[in-house]
């Protein structure tokens, strides 16, 4: 339940798709809020293996205007359910190397319970709903479109 003290506060709320490498330090600085006692950071990074093969990099594609719209709406839904002082979700498009962040979610709240729950909620929904796709490139020269979400009709 949001406290009335916070109702008129300006909330850092960023939903963005970017072609540039994600600068985690910079995002953390933007998320900083003296009201926050907890900052939870999720970074989805490119791992070096997938389907038993060695990965060289991932290419991300998005229908950007809708992806940003949907990420923004997921963040807003999170804000309705948990008391967040700042919330950031940034997703890459373009080529992302092994070890690099493809997506970052930062949630800051007074106490950690809200930050943890909101963070998990946001990444799960963004992965499921945002029109963003990855193509996996393997070291053997082959490539394959990713298929995280086999659902239809959402």
């Amino acid at each position, binding site marked *: 339940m949001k406290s009335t003290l916070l109702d008129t506060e300006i909330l850092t709320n960023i939903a963005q798709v970017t072609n540039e490498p994600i600068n985690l330090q910079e995002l953390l600085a933007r998320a900083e809020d003296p009201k926050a006692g907890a900052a939870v950071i999720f970074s989805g990074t490119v791992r070096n293996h997938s389907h038993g093969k060695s990965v060289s990099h991932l290419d991300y594609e998005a*229908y950007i205007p809708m992806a940003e719209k949907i990420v923004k709406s997921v963040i807003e839904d999170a804000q309705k359910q948990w008391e967040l002082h700042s919330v950031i979700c940034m997703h890459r498009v373009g080529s992302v190397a092994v070890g690099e962040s493809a997506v970052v979610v930062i949630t800051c709240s007074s106490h950690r319970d809200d930050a943890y729950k909101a963070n998990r909620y946001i990444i799960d929904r*963004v992965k499921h709903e945002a*029109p963003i*796709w*990855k193509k996996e490139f393997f070291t053997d020269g082959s490539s394959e479109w990713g*298929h995280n979400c086999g659902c239809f009709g959402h």
Partner: protein
Amino acid sequence: MKATIHPFAVLKDFLGPEVSLELETGQSVKDVLSILRSNYPAASDVLNTCRVAIHEEFVSQDVQVADNEHIYILPPSSGG
């Protein structure tokens, strides 16, 4: 009546970067998908799993297509 189809991700492998369709007045998104399945049979399975968006909103299959519409066909997400 013309419509431009914008496929994404794996669907581009089957349809190319963009498809122009000639449609009859009153045809729906469902009709567009049928035409695409017919013209690109190899894309049928993928098309069956796609969401469709017009003017940056998801639309249901019974929505009628307007002249010069831009139709975005989005396979299941694999972001994150």
